């Protein structure tokens, strides 16, 4: 594979090239205490030095002296809100004649910089879910097709990361157009698609030293990971534990608030609702993120199938770590650790697996 090098000062060249391909460029920004993807205005630069500290139920940003732009490991979002927005209109209907029409949406071509390996793994799971069925989701597809992805290899892991154990990180291996490895003074770049390759062609090659440095960084990120999921497929463990007391023990702590499912980059549950104009002349059908932690998720008339938090947590856990295998051929967890950090009471999925496993 060809590796290129771009000094930090020359990064604007890459941005310029990207602007020829994309109407919108999204970059990580520190906003309200977390790193989130946000539009890069022309002339604006990516802010250096931000680094986050994460732990169960904790996330805080620190501004360091480092010149690096991608020192942080993960933010609360992956690509999920971009390809699958929290709330969107599906179609509209006119009262006159009850005629249905799609809601036309034009999706700007978007380049997004700073995507992590776990985010890419999650994206390919969402692809399988939304596009792999007999009824591909057209809205998802439009947004998916509009993306140009610039990934970045993690040089650091957060305390909550465990992508090494799930096999999804810390360096990007698939699903990107371009991947960066950030060094103090610049970037080692590689392409992951034909269009990525064509953009990089003009850049100069990376040298030995730069390549070694970038590889070392990944090793460092690997060595920083303290959490993990067991290497084996968890299906049999979970399936034999469906009636274990462990779920009650978790339910004593779990709030059933749905934060974990919302931040999880692979959770896809949503509900639909009709929003009619007050005068009743037309109505729009919306879908919005839902969670298996709500009552309505398992409601059928007169019964809530999972009325207890214990069964809801079990549903989430079982789906993520066991049933995903049946549905999409692999576990639904990519090791990003978001559900650990963003749980208001700090419930830790890796710890719960360990407990179930008798540790």
């Amino acid at each position, binding site marked *: 594979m060809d590796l290129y090098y771009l000094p930090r000062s020359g990064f604007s060249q890459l941005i310029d090239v990207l602007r020829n391909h994309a109407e919108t460029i999204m970059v990580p920004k520190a906003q309200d205490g977390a790193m989130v993807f946000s539009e890069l205005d022309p002339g604006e630069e990516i802010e250096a030095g931000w680094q986050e500290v994460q732990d169960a139920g904790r996330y805080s940003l620190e501004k360091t002296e480092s010149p690096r732009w991608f020192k942080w490991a993960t933010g609360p979002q992956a690509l999920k809100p971009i390809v699958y927005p929290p709330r969107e209109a*599906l*179609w509209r*209907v006119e009262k006159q004649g009850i*005629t249905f029409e799609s809601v036309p949406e034009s*999706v700007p071509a978007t380049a997004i910089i700073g995507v992590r390996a776990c985010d890419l793994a999650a994206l390919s799971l969402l692809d399988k879910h939304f596009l792999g*069925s007999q009824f591909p989701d057209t809205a998802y597809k439009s947004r998916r097709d509009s993306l140009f992805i610039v990934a970045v290899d993690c040089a650091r892991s957060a305390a909550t990361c465990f992508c090494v154990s799930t096999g999804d990180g810390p360096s990007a291996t698939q699903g990107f157009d371009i991947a960066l490895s950030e060094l103090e003074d610049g970037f080692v770049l590689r392409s992951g698609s034909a269009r990525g390759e064509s953009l990089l062609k003009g850049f100069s090659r990376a040298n030995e030293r730069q390549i070694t440095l970038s590889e070392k960084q990944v090793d460092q990120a690997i060595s920083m990971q303290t959490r993990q999921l067991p290497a084996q497929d968890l299906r049999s463990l979970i399936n034999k534990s469906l009636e274990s007391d462990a779920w009650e023990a978790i339910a004593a702590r779990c709030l059933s608030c749905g934060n974990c499912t919302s931040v999880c980059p692979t959770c896809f549950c949503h*509900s639909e609702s009709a929003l*009619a104009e007050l005068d009743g002349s037309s109505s729009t059908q919306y*879908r919005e993120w839902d969670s298996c932690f709500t009552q309505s998720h398992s409601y059928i008339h*007169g019964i809530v199938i999972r009325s207890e938090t214990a069964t809801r947590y079990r549903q989430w856990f079982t789906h993520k770590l066991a049933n995903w295998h049946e549905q999409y051929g692999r576990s639904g967890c990519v090791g990003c650790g978001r559900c650990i950090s963003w749980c208001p009471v700090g419930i830790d999925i890796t710890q719960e697996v360990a407990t179930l496993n008798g540790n």
Partner: protein
Amino acid sequence: MVTNPQSPYLPKTVEVVERIQETQTVFTLRLRFIDEGFSEQYRFQPGQFNMLYLYGVGEIPISIVSDPDGLPFIDHAIRVVGRVTKGMAKLKKGDRLGLRGPYGQGWPMDLARDKNLLVITGGLGCAPVVSAINYVIERRADFNKLTIMQGVKLPSDLVWRSRYEQWSQIPDTEIYLAADEGAANWPWHVGRVTELFDRMSLAPDTVAMLCGPEGMMRVCIKELVQRTIKEEFIFLSMERNMQCAVGSCGHCQFGPYFVCKDGPVFCYAKVKQLLAIKGV
């Protein structure tokens, strides 16, 4: 710039051709697509369902009860239980609604051909199996004995009483009804539905089709298995909350399955373990 092609969630407009009040709480809507071209492409299997959309209110899964040969008319028997069904109850002939489908895996009618068929429904759930019963009655010669069993709490809960009376007149068809509590005009069994099993003879090659509350299905399946009906020959129609019906919204998951696309009809052998655990 990329723009959306047509969404798989977009319903088609249908018109109410006829509305029949079956009981106080159940009514049948006979529907037909406005777009004739589309109507011609539309095909379905007994046991499949459609998503019906009531203007401005919401979309719900409803089984198709009419015969596949009855197209272009599509019948839905709807029980008024809550928000959307209450609104649908007000629809009149000529009103329009939205429909998309058909979805899901229907009853294994091919497997049942030339075999005995036992249909069991309980509680309020019966619409899904009516399609199978109708299918058999229309093609009576293709099937052996047809046994229909239903258990209700109160005699007044029995929907389509007149139909049971009609069905019982059809050759080689047996009807077993039970109500937990009796009443003056209840000629059938008073007691649990499971007590009826002792009165019938079940040939081992019987294909059983069940629909109703999960508790009731569990109990009946136990009886069937004890009476040496093969697990592979037992089928049940499951219900879960459904928002999209195309395996996207995640609500209808039942273990690893999506009820909307892997079901609603499941072979018992496949879901045996799941069915044993509450809250799955």
